[in-house]
């Protein structure tokens, strides 16, 4: 049978024969992830299940990233639960403090996920690893506890929506613009229960960090995962990040798709998602009258080194507009260090940005840039639900680091061409 990427990867992890969408198969897991918010619930379920050990102490990943360093007593107490569990179980990959970064940037960077893997995480943006050809999906803490104990879980084989990216990528268009445009076209439940599979002739022009960003937001269309093939670019990335011989993967010719969406990127303008859903997309040039109080550049969507370089390229020799807070958050300690070594911190500092240590922080309204009543922010994160970054009366716009940085300079939503 000709298979989609989703079917192919699930088949690699089960003894049952993967056939049609809707079929339920039990699969072996390559990795199981939880963070400082979802870990304690998973650990509670783990104990309630009567379990004594994790299925594989090298393949359970615990990353304390959402409120790190812990913002208050309650969040600090939650980390104690995970820290103790990691110690008791002898978990190899427990990350906290100066070792911790935003989980979905950290795992691929450390080579803990590779093409063909099947990974579950107690975080909805676990779908990020589809950017390097891994089937990964977000689940709740109790499913994660089950995965931690048994190393297995049931999956419904998803139908797949094929997305072909064609044409010539304009200079300032990034993966973020492509995924926002797609969500704008198909809606926030356009891929509900389904896999997104990306292909097309312009895929070669989307680098791995751009692909990770796109896969990250598959969930914002309701998707189970967002899968990219594992090609030359993937191999190069994986070799540089601890996987010497990564698997090549592509969907079979003649695989069955529920539908195919084609996006021609030629002449495309940067895209911004307006409040309060990621599907409310507009070309950046239509929003030049929208003022901002805060700009956030970071997150599991756009906190990688290429994002830092994009922001720095825009901010070099320029100043953040008076009255605007621009918060730059490198997603991992390695990105933080690389940005510093490349002199990007000088650029950010000269421009008047706040430079944070790695954290999810403001993306979920946690801390490090929470919005007050009536405030407006443009952020490179993935979700702009009402109240997501703070007050229920605040507003959140989503864009690429290029657009976010340009908006920081002018104080209104601005594309790079308008600077």
């Amino acid at each position, binding site marked *: 049978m000709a298979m989609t990427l989703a079917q192919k990867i699930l088949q690699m992890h089960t003894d049952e024969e993967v056939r049609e969408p809707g079929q*339920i198969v039990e699969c072996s897991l390559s990795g199981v992830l939880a963070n400082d*918010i*979802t870990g*304690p*619930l998973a650990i*509670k*379920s783990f104990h*309630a*299940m*009567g*379990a*004594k050990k994790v299925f594989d102490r090298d393949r359970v990943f615990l990353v304390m990233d959402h409120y790190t360093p812990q913002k*208050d007593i*309650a*969040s600090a*107490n*939650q980390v104690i639960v995970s820290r103790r569990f990691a110690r008791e179980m002898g978990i190899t990959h427990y990350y906290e403090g100066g070792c911790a970064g935003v989980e979905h940037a950290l795992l691929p960077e450390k080579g803990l996920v590779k093409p063909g893997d099947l990974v579950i*995480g*107690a*975080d*909805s943006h*676990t779908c990020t690893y589809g950017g390097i050809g891994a089937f990964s999906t*977000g*689940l*709740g*803490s*109790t*499913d994660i*506890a*089950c995965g931690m*104990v*048994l190393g297995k879980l*049931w999956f*419904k084989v998803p139908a797949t929506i094929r997305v072909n990216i064609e044409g010539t990528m304009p200079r300032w268009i990034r993966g973020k613009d492509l995924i926002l445009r797609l969500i704008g076209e198909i809606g*926030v*439940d356009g891929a*509900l*229960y389904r896999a997104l599979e990306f292909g097309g002739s312009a895929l070669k022009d989307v680098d791995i960090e751009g692909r990770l960003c796109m896969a990250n937001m598959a*969930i914002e269309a*309701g998707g*189970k995962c967002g899968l990219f093939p594992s090609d030359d670019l993937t191999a190069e990335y994986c070799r540089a990040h601890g996987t010497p011989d990564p698997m090549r993967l592509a969907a079979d010719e003649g695989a069955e798709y529920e539908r195919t969406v084609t996006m021609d990127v030629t002449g495309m303008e940067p895209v911004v998602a307006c409040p309060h*859903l990621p599907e409310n997309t507009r070309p950046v040039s239509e929003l030049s009258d929208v003022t901002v109080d805060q700009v956030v550049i970071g997150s599991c969507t756009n906190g990688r080194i290429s994002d830092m370089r994009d922001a720095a390229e825009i901010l070099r020799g320029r100043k953040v507009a008076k009255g605007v807070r621009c918060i730059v958050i490198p997603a991992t300690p390695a990105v933080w260090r690389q940005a510093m070594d490349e002199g990007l911190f000088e650029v950010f500092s000269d421009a008047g940005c706040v430079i944070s240590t790695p954290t999810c922080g403001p993306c*979920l*309204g*946690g801390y490090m840039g929470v919005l007050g009543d009536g405030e407006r922010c443009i952020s490179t994160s993935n*979700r702009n*639900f*009402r*109240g*997501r970054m703070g007050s*229920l009366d605040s507003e959140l716009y989503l864009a690429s680091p290029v657009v976010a940085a340009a908006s920081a300079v002018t104080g209104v939503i601005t594309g790079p061409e308008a600077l």
Partner: protein
Amino acid sequence: MSFTGKVHKVGAHIDTDAIIPARFLVTTDTRKLGEACMEGLEPGWVKRVHEGDIIVAGRNFGCGSSREHAPLAIIGAGIRAVVGHSFARIFYRNAFNMGLMLLEVGDEVDKINDGDTLEISPENGTIRDLDNGAEIRIPPLSPMMQTLIDKGGMVNYVKEQLKLRGEAE
């Protein structure tokens, strides 16, 4: 066994930040989470809820994060079941794993009015609005979801698996 409850209608794309905002995620206590249920939709929303009430929702209920605190907050608020047009997939799994009943009914959801009393009979496969007389057929659950409900949720299911392996306490 059928049960009845008062309807609280909510709109489409009610996300997990609306169900339980992140600032309340510093506990795993169901009752405490319940006190903040729907706080991101409307402050004080939960005050209208009585034990055994039912949420009736539009498309894509529970979209957003994977936080299991969302179904827990709904359970903690005393809600017995959620009838929805459709549900976000992570929320759907989480709810069944936590023992919260979800009933996916598509466009039929529009037949139910806010504030009415619903009678839900899972065995008969029916939902009835006792105030306007509307009746909705409930599609059967998939075998895996049925297994989870029969076992009393995911925790018990895994417990049984471990017993079979001789690894449980």
